[in-house]
């Protein structure tokens, strides 16, 4: 079996095992630290991966993103502050449990649910992605154009609060991806007379600027409202309040299974990440619960639903990346960046050209789940206490300096540092204006591929656009994209009408 080969590849490299363990622990810590997202930590550490062998580099980045997803639940449960956006739903039930002295139970439920969701998603990735890749390999430029269109539409319409701002974020990402060489003619364009822009905008300064430097700017303006000094409520002395009983586990199991399903399906769609999955699963768990009155007051089912769903996206996110070459999330986009830097061709052929590497990565994913389960089950409380000892105003200045060192490490060019600063300001402005930095970054990564596919598709047929109508798979992807935006528009209109009705009613009352 391929996964056995993967374990053999992983364990034949001591360095890869070391970085898998280090990545898991770093991810747990990064996820647990409020304000510092997993994407920021990955972007910060990306330049170090240039000096690693490809397997260690991929394993390092992948394990950070996986364990950070669970790590985010620790402060959400203990301090009512989610470490990552995807833990926002966990805090709704986790923190009330902490207030009742049941933080041990909540944390253990979170780690059990996270590991369950993550394992299922990882197994689907291991056994399903290669099959999908066989079909994906038969796709040509028209189908790829449709897939890119679908990804851009979902990215724009689902992430964030406004469809138009989402679309503009995506278009800006595509536009900046056009700087450099024309993919068909090879002629330079949009370099504005600068030799530095001849090859296009380098990925690392953009990632560091948009994800990390912008976060430093946000933190400095918000004067570090999050962070150190928080105290954990005293734990209950009753032993059954500190672990999950077998009866409780059996009760939440159906919710966990359903939520894992939601997370996996949502994770497979490009652009929709764990933050959406956790709220969908949480809302469904509340709707189908036999005890809905407990929700909001510390329902264990709520913690299980949110955590199994958000972790179930982490393996599934890689399916569009490895089968179509399209990253489904920010973490997958960063992984795509590492793959490109190490010369690994992303797409369906990766299962043939980089067989050892891909299955080694999957094996590391399973090892990461086992590691964070063990550390999380017995050590979450300790990690929570460690976070309270770190003053946030000490962390961000060093993150700021690390951005410079990490950018300089890329190719020792001062221009890259200036570029990183510029993207830091852009990321900050985008966050302040509620645009979508993840949509911008993913669109930047996909932009040139989308243009190449579209132009190649148009060369295939004398009838130009008609080529897309002759390909059923392409039509299906176009339909999914249009359907996604229509659904979102209807949802937005309905929300606006409800708000207007509520305003009319309250005005009538006055």
């Amino acid at each position, binding site marked *: 079996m391929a996964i056995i080969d993967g374990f053999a590849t992983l364990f034949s490299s001591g360095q890869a095992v070391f970085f898998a363990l280090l990545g898991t622990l770093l991810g747990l810590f990064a996820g647990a630290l409020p304000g510092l997202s997993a994407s920021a930590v990955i972007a910060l550490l990306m330049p170090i991966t240039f000096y690693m062998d490809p397997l260690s580099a991929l394993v390092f980045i992948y394990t950070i993103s996986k364990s950070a997803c669970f790590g985010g639940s620790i402060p959400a449960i203990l301090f009512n502050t989610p470490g990552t956006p995807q833990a926002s739903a966990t805090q709704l039930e986790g923190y009330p449990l902490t207030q009742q002295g049941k933080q041990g139970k909540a944390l253990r439920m979170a780690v059990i649910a996270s590991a369950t969701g993550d394992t299922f998603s990882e197994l689907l990735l291991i056994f399903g992605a290669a099959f999908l890749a066989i079909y994906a390999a038969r796709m040509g430029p028209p189908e790829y154009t449709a897939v890119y269109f679908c990804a851009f539409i979902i990215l724009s319409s689902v992430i964030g609060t406004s469809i138009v701002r989402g679309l503009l974020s995506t278009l800006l990402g595509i536009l900046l991806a056009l700087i450099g060489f024309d993919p068909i003619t090879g002629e330079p364009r949009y370099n504005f007379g600068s030799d530095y822009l001849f090859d296009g905008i380098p990925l690392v300064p953009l990632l560091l600027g948009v994800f990390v430097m912008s976060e430093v700017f946000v933190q400095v303006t918000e004067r570090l409202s999050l962070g150190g000094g928080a105290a954990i409520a005293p734990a209950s002395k009753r032993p059954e309040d500190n672990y999950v009983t077998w009866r409780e586990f059996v009760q939440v199991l159906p919710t966990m299974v359903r939520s894992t399903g939601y997370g996996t399906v949502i994770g497979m769609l490009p652009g929709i990440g764990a933050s959406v999955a956790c709220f969908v699963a949480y809302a469904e768990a509340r709707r189908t619960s036999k005890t809905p009155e407990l929700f909001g007051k510390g329902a264990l089912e709520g913690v299980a639903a949110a955590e199994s769903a958000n972790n179930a996206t982490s393996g599934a996110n890689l399916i569009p990346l490895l089968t179509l070459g399209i990253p489904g999330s920010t973490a997958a986009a960063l992984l795509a960046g590492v793959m490109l830097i190490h010369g690994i061709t992303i797409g369906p052929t990766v299962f043939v050209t980089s067989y050892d590497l891909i299955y080694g990565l999957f094996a590391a994913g399973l090892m990461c789940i086992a590691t964070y389960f063990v550390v999380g089950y017995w050590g979450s409380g300790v990690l929570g206490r460690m976070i309270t000892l770190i003053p946030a105003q000490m962390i961000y200045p060093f993150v700021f300096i690390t951005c410079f060192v990490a950018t300089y490490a890329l190719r020792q060019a*001062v221009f890259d540092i200036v570029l990183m600063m510029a993207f830091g300001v852009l990321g900050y402005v985008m966050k302040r204006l509620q645009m979508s930095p993840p949509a911008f970054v993913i669109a930047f990564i996909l932009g040139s591929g989308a243009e190449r596919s579209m132009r190649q598709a148009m060369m295939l047929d004398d009838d130009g656009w008609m080529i897309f109508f002759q390909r059923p798979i392409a039509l299906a992807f176009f339909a999914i994209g249009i359907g996604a935006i229509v659904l979102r528009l209807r949802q937005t209109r309905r929300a606006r009408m409800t708000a207007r009705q509520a305003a009319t009613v309250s005005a009538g009352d006055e």
Partner: protein
Amino acid sequence: MDRADRGNAVVGVLMLLVVAIFGPATGSIYVDPYDPGFGARDFPVGVLVLMAVLAIALLARSLAGMLRAGEAFGGFGEVTDFVRYVVPMIAIGFVYVWLIGLFQYALPTALAAAASLAVFGNRGFARLVVAPIIATLVYYVLFFGVLGLHEQPGSILAFDSQAFFQPLRIFLGLL
């Protein structure tokens, strides 16, 4: 004018500015006269047109909102925050880069770390002197020692960090 309208107006103006910068440059993209199908300018033009249409729509909607509300501009809260906190960090960044050109990496890193710690509200000898020195040592050993990064000589202070770290790299088996 509520917060959302103001945000939409700013996004609209910024995006139109981007279109104004990239638009003229699109005209100079080389087009192969024998290029079949979609030309080299068509995709960028499509992106720019879509951006302009959405930006104008956003701007129009926000201006309509402003007229409906009949209120004055809501103030410069975010801009004040930006000038007060973000601009000093950007200034530290640029001074840091300038100092690297003069003194190489170590000294500017310690100074920039101390300055950014101060902007974040840290005070005292331990946080403003000891912590930056320790952090600089860690960065320096990791990036220039272990990873073997090349450093350009500074115009005032110049030394060969690769030669300096050679014994360490030999000890670690990296050379």
